[in-house]
């Protein structure tokens, strides 16, 4: 994320606003534009009904869609549950971890 600040005005200065000064850049624009995906991985311990309920709760998916993703995890080993900006993806992964699901966020190349 980029942080900007305006410099202080000098006494008697005629200008009203000085040009913003870029102080620090922690993440490039290109990086911000890269979409991320939330992936859930298969785990033989978590119950299928439990995983379905978690998908419904975390993503607000209807039961059918949640079950479809659960079965994809079960049969394919993983399922992409969501994709978009990094902050939101991190939030979803945190929610999934709080329910003890194996979840990761991945950059979409």
């Amino acid at each position: 994320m980029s942080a900007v600040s305006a410099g202080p005005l000098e006494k008697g200065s005629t200008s009203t606003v000085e040009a913003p000064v870029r102080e620090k850049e922690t993440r490039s624009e290109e990086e911000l534009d890269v979409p991320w995906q939330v992936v859930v991985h298969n785990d033989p311990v978590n119950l299928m009904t439990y995983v379905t309920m978690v998908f419904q709760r975390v993503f607000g998916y209807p039961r059918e869609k949640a079950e479809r993703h659960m079965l994809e995890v079960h049969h394919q080993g993983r399922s992409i549950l969501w994709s978009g900006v990094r902050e939101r993806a991190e939030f979803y992964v945190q929610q999934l971890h709080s329910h003890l699901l194996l979840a990761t966020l991945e950059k979409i190349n």
Partner: protein
Amino acid sequence: MEICRDKDALQISDLDPFLAELLRQIPLSANPDGASAAEARLFSQPSAEKEICAEWKSYVEPELRRLFQTASETVTDDLAQLNGNEKSLSNCTLHIPIEHADAWLNTLNQARLVIATKYRFSDEELNDHNRSPIGSRRDLGLFQINFYGFLQEFILREIASG
């Protein structure tokens, strides 16, 4: 053992001493202390990117620890109903307030994951729900996973039915 829903609580009654002990073991079984593989499973890596993992360890993992600990404490408090004379268990009913259902689901899941990691059960073993008899500590671990899974299924069904 009987398990049913009564208004705003889940009830487990007619407990024999063995199942009562398994219930009492839930919080202890959920504790990954001393088992690094179990610890790694409960607090799994969120990404292949080192920077994300480092931030996660500093900011998210402590929150998850607090959440799991709080859930476990709620279950421990509910299980205090089972303290006392073993002979009286047949008349004892464990009441789980419905608002504690999430804490129970979470702690049962912690326990199942920790036990499964500790004994390195294969997929085949985990899918064998009719395995018997219990002849070793490992067999008991698998029985615990199935018993706790049965409780989770019941709780999930009751949550879904409102």
